């Protein structure tokens, strides 16, 4: 089957790739572009481990086709830190130990970034519902919610 030529922007860089018409954006990121920060936990949009931001919208990259990235802006976990300077959410996840195994962490960070972009001062309930599309099996979410609360207060002050 002939490949589809796609021209897109990933974490601010122009990127071109060929993919199959039925290939997910997650597979393109992981298998063709070496961006393995997004994880496949289910492949059906239920776990959020593959969360990325596509033109300012949080999506499960397993539910997006690679071809749909044409002309769009893709943001992945690999673009979250600026050089060696971590994003406040990344820093607060470390300080609060908001991860144990860490496999859901990239997805949670993208979802939390999207949440705070739209609601810079969320209540605990808003955080809990805002992150309800991301599954974590290790932490019971307690420290994740606290990390997002702390990051929100740091980002407001910045």
């Amino acid at each position, binding site marked *: 089957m002939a490949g589809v030529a796609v021209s897109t922007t990933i974490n601010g860089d122009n990127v071109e790739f060929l993919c199959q018409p039925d290939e997910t954006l997650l597979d393109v990121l992981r298998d063709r572009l070496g961006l393995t920060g997004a994880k496949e936990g289910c492949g059906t949009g239920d776990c959020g481990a593959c969360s990325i931001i596509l033109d300012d919208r949080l999506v499960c990259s397993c539910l997006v086709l690679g071809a749909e990235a044409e002309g769009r802006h893709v943001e992945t*976990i690999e673009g979250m830190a600026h050089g060696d300077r971590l994003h406040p959410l990344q820093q607060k996840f470390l300080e609060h130990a908001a991860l144990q*195994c860490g*496999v859901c962490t990239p997805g949670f960070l993208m979802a939390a970034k999207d949440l705070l972009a739209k609601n810079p001062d969320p209540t605990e309930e808003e955080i809990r519902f805002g992150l309800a599309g*991301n599954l974590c099996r290790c932490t019971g979410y307690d420290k994740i919610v606290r990390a997002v609360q702390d990051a929100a207060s740091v980002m407001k002050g910045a």
Partner: protein
Amino acid sequence: MNFDPRYSGRNFTSVGTRPIRPDGVDKVTGRARYGADFNMAGQLVGRVLRSPHAHATIRKIDTSKAEKLAGVKAVITAADLPDLTDGDAAMYDILDNCMARKKALYDGHAVAAVAAVDARTARQALKLIEVDYEVLPHVTDVDEAMKHSAPLINDAIFTEGLEQKPVKPSNVTKRTQYGHGDIHEGFGQADFVVERSFKTEQTHQGYIEPHACVANVSSDGTADLWVCTQGHFVYRQHCAQLLGMEASKLRVTSSEIGGGFGGKTHVWAEPVALALSRKAGRPVKLVMTRDEVFRASGPTSATSIDVRIGARKDGTITAAEATLRYSCGPYAGTWAEIGAMTAFACYKLENVRTVGYEVLVNRPKTAAYRAPSAPMAAFAVESAVDELAKEIGMDPVEFRIRNAAQEGTRSSYGPVYGPIGIGPTLEAVKNHPHMKAPLGKNQGRGMACGFWFNFGGQTCTDLNIGMDGSVSLAVGTVDVGGSRASLSLVAAEELGIPYEQIKAVVADTSSLGYNDMTDGSRGTFSSSMATISAARNAIKVLRERAAQMWDIPVDDVVWEKGHAIAKGEKYDNLAALSLKEIAAASGKTGGPIAGHSELVADGAGVSFATHICDIEVDPETGSTRVLRYTVVQDAGKAVHPTYVEGQYQGGAAQGIGWALNEEYIYGKDGRLQNPGFLDYRIPVCSDLPMIDTQILEIPNPNHPYGVRGVGETSIVPPLAAIANAVSNAAGVRMTHIPMSPPRILAAIEAERGG
């Protein structure tokens, strides 16, 4: 120098602090490499064909069409994994579970596998494999499987542990019994007796990362395996045995692990990937889909448990007994036995008896899940204990305090306890503000206790000191939840240097001696013991080198706060030598400085917890909301308290999911109906409140710092604590887990109708 593991009651500098974990930055930036994040040049994609039938004889498998498909490089069946287990029944079961040999024993059982140039070709090839099945009658329910009329899953199995050897085969592989005293006499002394039957449904560990590996077998007989596992040394042994390799020729590297909870202690895909790579002559990457994870890996047992407990009017339990039936999947296990051992472990009992039955069913092979078998037994026992307290008219906490096991108590499973934490956790709960907080309409509070043995086991650790004085700590226990941080703290404590000066890594199987896997809450317990031992061996070398540099007897050199110090007034002119100074001179004083340790970490201290839970029940719909949750648990010594809290919270959350939502649902056709996260619903962020924790520290006398395992106990009390809360809120005793809305509504309606 012999290592002395006894508790020494020292004051700590590093242990007990909360630094950022050494693997943290990689995990928040997406750089950490998990099972599926590794690739090798020229690798193929492996895929597995699975039985759609719960029970079927495999008459024939025709792979010829698949083999002819362009891009297919290898197709394998059980014929490519010959039986090399040499009479080892447990290994034969593992082999048969990896690839069905004569019969498919559950929906999802592997029957063939392919390796192809890409995923699309591999999927196409699976469709071209023709399997001729003769479908057999099946049984998936644990109670149904025990009936004489049930379809036999393995006609070579005769129940072990009966007084008379049975003449007919059975789905019950084994009967076990624990206890002491005379329960008939004990029940004779009772003023009150509660007798109840309980059921719990099967759940999955639910790790977010599916099983994944990359296997590369060379024609010279050596191989590499990259894999997400809780125990790469154990995987090496199992894979080497199943494939007929020498263990040392197979190097296994453990990736970062995206959750395991017991589910990554067993090989499934790894021998298949190695066999595919061997046949294709190329590396093969094999990653399970979520559907495969649910249908073919994990899960825990489904159970059916009868409990009977009697007590006097004064609240003293006089007798307790339980009969526990646990599903094992289609292969023999010891799951009911573990349940029988743990059921009454929290209590001081004169007369106690538990009986376990291991039951075969056409479901996936039961795997360990965090304190395996204990949560279900605790659910049954702690529900009955609550009911008995109510009948006597005693507060449930006071009733438990009165009967709690103590130091010197002979446990219901045999051993006599040393210093233990059940009493202190109950006292802490009694005094906790949570117990006094007001409750609203339709709200109920429950509490329950839990026990887990904890485990130690074989452990090997290397501590190497660089010429710049920085320290590499190589451990062989996979880090599932922050143990590299806690072990670095332990090395810093022992050497007397800053945490930041240490870098801990998990070494591969060719770089370190054998280690048991990270299970039984042993990771930090056993590897910290080996780290302390290795550090003390390194300190001995450091003292010798300092003595050489000063030209004084080594017995005059002591180690304090990261420095060698010459002891005695005659050495007043000798300034202390730092670890860095000694390391810098090492090239001239005898070469590299290191400490090694190989030991069996005995004496893992038993662990107890008590949980409190508030639940609101909607009497119209049966839906529930967790309002407040508190965990009180003994850690012995919390090395990194934040990660100890994390273990408490995570176990509680898994228990909440098990209690209220999660279950394997099988259709009449024996097929799993909910193999995905949409229909098998684990708790999400909006389902839970904050989970409060209180860490108690009752030192383990068998560890230098008093450490006990902390990982598993936290999943033991939740099923019972929540069941007690729901029962109190709804006004009806709940006896079937999970307490999903339909079950709660049915119970409420039955109570109203009755």
